């Protein structure tokens, strides 16, 4: 598949999925697996083998990689040596740019200054810290293994290890979190002065424990919306740009890797369940770790599903991804989609009149109010 499709953009991202977790959180619907040393060792060999297999494709030496993102799961469960080996292998098989953004998602309890220093030596230059909340009780309820103090310690450790680009993940709309608790949480984290902040509204996804069993004490919708606006104004006051639905950055610190997704750029994918995109093909690897490993060990690329997009789907994607970002998309794209679709045009006018959608020169973008309702528009753009 990679062999007969060449990337159409100048450079690529690369996503590496590290599935293991010491404990699965109630809200999580990601592809995770229980952490065991033997399974981890097999996984590390498998993911490097996958890079070998993908790296034999003819175009790989020519197309540079501008960002690498290790997501999970809990990638910070990887020993420093393994981290180094994986990144080295990727560099050996692909043309990773020397200034590529290399991010690792870290859970606070699984990192120390020493480990983070080693990650840094392995080439990692950006840490995304899964703090989620700064209240011990709330963290316990989420099923997290760290407390507020450990979160702070991990952030400091990242700084001491020399990371000048640290992002903090927070969640809002959590059960038992009142408006003032949330304000306090945001204040606390902003006081650490991270370069980047991601704040995700809790959703009860199918596939998560809470999605299946439900959860008590969820705040009402207007309370969740109020938390969003609290965050929006506090982040702005601290000099952050709200550059994507759920992401805030100090000038110059937007995540290159995540912007690749939103701009419908191309990216490679490694690891169980990882999703990739090259040319007109989106694919995803097999999810169960043992099967992922046995596929790669047998010398086969562990692709599970694969989809060729039509022009219509591609245009819809460009719109629904691009409109998640503050820069929006060229107005001509929306024009193309709305041609001959009177209902959509009426809808667009209404969104504009309500201040949810803004036309700026020759671009169109959602406002911060528009982000909150974005899926209602995206449905019509499909």
């Amino acid at each position: 598949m990679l062999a007969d499709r060449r990337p159409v953009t100048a450079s690529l991202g690369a996503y590496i999925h590290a599935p293991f977790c010491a404990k699965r959180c109630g809200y999580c619907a990601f592809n995770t697996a229980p952490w065991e040393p033997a399974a981890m060792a097999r996984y590390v060999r498998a993911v490097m083998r996958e890079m070998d297999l993908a790296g034999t494709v003819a175009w790989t030496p020519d197309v540079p990689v501008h960002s690498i993102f290790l997501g999970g799961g809990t990638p910070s469960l990887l020993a420093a040596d393994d981290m180094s080996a994986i990144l080295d292998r990727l560099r050996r098989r692909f043309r990773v740019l020397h200034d590529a953004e290399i991010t690792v998602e870290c859970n606070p309890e699984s990192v120390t200054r020493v480990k983070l220093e080693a990650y840094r030596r392995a080439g990692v230059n950006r840490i995304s810290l899964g703090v989620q909340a700064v209240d011990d009780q709330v963290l316990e309820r989420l099923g997290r293994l760290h407390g507020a103090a450990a979160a702070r310690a991990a952030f400091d450790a990242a700084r001491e290890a020399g990371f000048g680009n640290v992002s903090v993940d927070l969640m809002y709309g959590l059960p038992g979190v009142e408006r003032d608790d949330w304000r306090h949480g945001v204040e606390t984290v902003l006081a650490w002065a991270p370069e980047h902040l991601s704040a995700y509204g809790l959703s009860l996804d199918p596939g998560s424990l809470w999605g299946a069993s439900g959860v008590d004490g969820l705040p009402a919708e207007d309370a969740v919306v109020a938390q969003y606006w609290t965050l929006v104004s506090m982040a702005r006051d601290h000099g952050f740009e709200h550059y994507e639905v759920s992401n805030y950055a100090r000038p110059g610190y937007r995540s290159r890797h995540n912007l690749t997704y939103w701009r419908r750029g191309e990216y490679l994918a490694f690891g169980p369940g990882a999703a990739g995109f090259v040319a007109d093909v989106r694919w995803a690897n097999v999810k169960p770790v043992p099967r992922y490993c046995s596929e790669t060990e047998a010398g086969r690329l562990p692709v599970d599903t694969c989809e060729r997009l039509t022009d219509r789907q591609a245009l819809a994607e460009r719109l629904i991804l691009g409109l998640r970002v503050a820069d929006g998309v060229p107005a001509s794209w929306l024009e193309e989609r709305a041609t001959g679709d009177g209902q959509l045009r009426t809808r667009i006018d209404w969104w504009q009149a309500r201040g949810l959608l803004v036309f700026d020169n020759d671009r169109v973008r959602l406002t911060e109010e528009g982000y909150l309702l974005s899926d209602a528009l995206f449905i019509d753009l499909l």
Partner: protein
Amino acid sequence: MAVARIRNFSIVAHIDHGKSTLADRLLALTGTMDAKKAVDQVLDSMDLERERGITIKAHTVRLLYRARDGHEYTLNLIDTPGHVDFSYEVSRALAACEGALLIIDAAQGIEAQTLANYYLAHEAKLAIIPVINKIDLPAADVEGTREQITEELELDGHEALAISAKHGTGVPEVLEAIVARIPPPVGDPDAPLKALVFDSYYDSYLGVVVYVRLIDGRVRSGTRIAFMSNGRTYEVHQIGVLTPGLTPVEELSAGGVGYLTASVKRVADAKVGDTITEAVRPATEAIPGYRDAKPMVFAGLYPIEDTDYEALRDALEKLRLNDPAFTFEPETSLALGYGFRCGFLGMLHMEIVQERLERHYGLSLIVTSPSVQYRLLTTAGEVLEVDNPSKLPTPDKIEEMEEPYVGASIFVPTEFMTAIYRLAQEKRGEHRSLEYLGGKRVHIRFDFPLAEIVVDFYDKLKSISKGYASFDYEFSGFRLAELVKLDILLNGDPVDALSIIVHRDKAYEKGKALVEKLRQVIPRQLFEVAIQAAIGSRVIARETVKAMGKNVTAKCYGGDITRKRKLLERQKEGKKRMKQVGKVEVPQEAFLSVLKS
């Protein structure tokens, strides 16, 4: 075949008491057809019937049986539909028989439909053979069931046959009993032709295939026949018997059951209950009991996609070929655009038509609030019939209004009487008579406004009587009534398709229930939606659907865009089932919520 060697019978039973299993056995034993095939093809030929566990069309099959007396008999099994909406069709199918097998589950005993069917068969003056089935079950109580039969039905429980249709035990005795206990038809093959139409369907090659039971006379291919209800005449092309496929024969004569084709173009021209006679030598009178199946309930059918209008019309035309009881004519709605006003026998009939349109023709439909047909006198002295609330003139133009009434007949065990009377009162019923049947059962007659019983009356009746009440009704005439039009407004704009006509005393209660129900089914939109119920300009109830506060995917799992797109696509599919009324997106079920509130 001599009339003396013919037996015409049907099998009736409570649901799941083993009617199809027994039919299947009888077919197999007489070598009519492979057992498995029989069940699949004959007795449950429609998906809808299988899924709902009800029979909509009557099925008929001829069995040839060599009895122990050494003679070969023709046994015609005429199966019946099983729902109150089709009670007329049931009565016609039974009118084609001389006897019935009444199946009773040995473990369950007599149940609601056992009784209801017993009464129907009894009324048709059939010889009834009680058959106790499932005697192989550990919980079977054959003696107890015999006693029940003696006590609760006017039958001798000791004459009941004990069988296991599943294992075949006792089934040969059933065939013998049919021969011995069901009288042969009485009819004169030399008298003028008189044949009862008990079913018909449209076949694209043969035209209408008419199922007939001959009372007197004979029919052959070439016979010039006339339908007595409309006087239309045709030349018979083919006659035959049902095996259960169409098997041509040379002649059918008095007492016989079979089919005929005669270039009849529409099922509507060969209606159930009609009498066929010979054109040149007509019978003096028709078989009694014929009724023109008239629609009782009317509703608008609209395609969700305006572009499906033509497709809907074609589908309705095709459906109507086989279902003359249902009518349609074009209508327009301010809210819904172009659609059709359709008439149905009852709510089940309406649901069946809707399901066929959606399933077989792939149409997405909106069905508006069902209405009965009202009659009114205008101040100008004109008499109007109105079956669409939005067509009702303004109150100042109406002199008086009448609504249709029915005479209803309910059989129920005495313990549920109080509940039945309470329900009747709630539904504006007027008590007519009460008759005790033995010590445990009563037969109650009420007059009801049709509008009160078409929608959920039958379901309610079933539920308050634990399924034991049987129910039948017949149109009895129009009566003056205090009626008002109740309008529903969404954000101030009246939605014509949601208007209903209600009794003045019930308007407030109904309006309140309706807006509450609509609040539950109308999804939140990007703006607040006010739902109001009004009579004229007076608002009597109001609810609000709050504006959507947030609708956003926070995160895309490691660049898994496909997943996000599929989630959105699924939402979009759901939205396709909604109709845009003004700016408000209203889901399909909202239009039917009138029923459920």
